[in-house]
């Protein structure tokens, strides 16, 4: 495991999504990469992400969604964060975040418009997310 980098992540699976395994793998991978991780598990609401980010003074929120309803579940997340005083906080989303097979360029654009800083398609290896987290948070 790398030395802790002092950056704090809040991660979880949003909405009525019960995919429990992937988020544990991400938790492990992020921790190994030196992040301080608060894993909220599955079926996490926007409010829970925000409450946890406030109390832990998180540096980023990483949202996972695997059941296709991510677009509905994520709508308004950035606005709520702004309301809660978390304006500007790094916000990622990844997984099977939309229904069916859609062109990822369109999907990414829609999520950018919703205020997400980075959007990851299905099958993204954790290393890629870790790479961008470190880059965006100015680690090493």
């Amino acid at each position, binding site marked *: 495991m790398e030395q802790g980098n002092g950056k704090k992540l809040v991660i979880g699976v949003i909405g009525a999504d019960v995919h429990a395994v992937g988020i544990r793998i991400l938790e492990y991978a992020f921790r190994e990469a030196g992040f301080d991780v608060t894993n909220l598990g599955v079926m996490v609401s926007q409010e829970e992400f925000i409450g946890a980010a406030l109390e832990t*003074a998180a540096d980023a929120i990483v949202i996972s969604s695997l059941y296709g309803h991510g677009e509905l579940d994520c709508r308004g997340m950035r606005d709520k964060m702004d309301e809660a005083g978390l304006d500007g906080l790094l916000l990622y989303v990844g997984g099977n975040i939309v229904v069916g097979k859609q062109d990822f360029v369109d999907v990414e654009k829609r999520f950018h418009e919703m205020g997400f800083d980075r959007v990851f398609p299905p099958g993204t290896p954790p290393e890629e997310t870790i790479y961008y987290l470190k880059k965006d948070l100015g680690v090493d």
Partner: protein
Amino acid sequence: MHYALLIDFGSTFTKVTAVDLISEEIVGTASAFTTVDSDIGTGLNVALDRLRRVTGDIAFEFKSACSSAAGGLRMMVSGLVPELTAEAARLAALGAGARITRLFTHELTRRDLIAIEADPPDIFLMTGGTDGGNRACMEKNAEKLRSLSVQFPIILAGNRQAIDACEDALADFPVTVCPNVMPSFGVLNIEPVQREIRDLFLKHIVNARGLSKTKEILSDILMPTPSAILSAMKLLADGTEKETGIGELMGIDVGGATTDVYTIARGEPVDMNVICKGLDEPYAKRTVEGDIGMRYSVAGIVSEVGQSWISERSGLTADDCATYISELSDDKSKVPLTHDDALARFDHALASGAVEIATRRHAGVLEEAFTTSGLIYVQTGKDLRSVRQIIFTGGSFIHAQSPLDIARHALYTERYPMSLRPKQATVLRDDRYILSAMGVLAEREKDIALRIIKRELVPLGDISLGDDS
């Protein structure tokens, strides 16, 4: 000398209980009006004179007391997010027997500071942030409290990274530091704070309150009354090494101004398709409903259940109910003259409403969620459906004509299927108000206290889901 004297300084009555430590029996109880305005010792002496008429002249091996006189232990608590650290702070203070006069979330405002200055608490519990998490909330609040012209003991129990700055800012206050009430997300750690609250209560509060001019009485006051009751309930549920307890239970005390609910139960989910959310809840949990009570808080009950509910259950007309509501708001000392007069029936409905609301607020809830793996339930708070014993204490229940009908309102019902209250229970009643006294006695004599509680609580019968209510 084999007698113990246990005293409960209540806001209205000072109750005394004499226990024979050899035969393990209560040899007498008595009460008198609490005299807080002059000297609390005056009322105590009247109660003791009355006790002596029952017991004769006996010498006591020790005397111990609990107190909720002079407003009880008045606390203010602050935290960051309402459902997280602020809730942890609230649970900690209530479980320590405090009355929360104000709860602050996020940063304190100027108006908050004016409110604190106008009515300073006995203890201020400041929390916020997980360890290593948010520092700004605690640090800014400490900086703001520093400007106050009044001082009071402050317990710092938030993000440990914020403690140094807070201690510096609050150098003029008596400050104690405790481990974080929520050291990491969702984890509750309130026992250290509760021990500290108790210590402060002993060291500062009783003295500062001018409860008595007699030093001798002071040294015997061990804890706030609700804390004594919670500890008696916990003893009864868990037992001791020598004496078995009765298992998980719920306790209800419907008072004149507030309604307290206690549960000694783990409350973990029982089904496979349940996911828990929110803060862990304490095994020994106390909640207080400040707007639910039989005299000072009638309006709170009525506004929650509705006037027609009260009128239906009391058999009184809507007009009669309205009359009682306004009469009771003018004269809090009104009591029923007979067991079945109109006021007694009105009180029956009020108590039923109080039990209904207070238990619903205390118990955990389920929410349905439809997922790709089928129906899932999300549980917040404790699942009390398998708790099988309910203890009632407090006057409104002790004098009630049909207590089981009132008690039924503490049960799970199809009308509120998501409220996780007991499905069936044996109802026990604290007929002689001994619970607080036994909580105090348990400080020295756990086994004796437990055996007395087990003997003294009166079983009224069993109630279950589906009984007509």
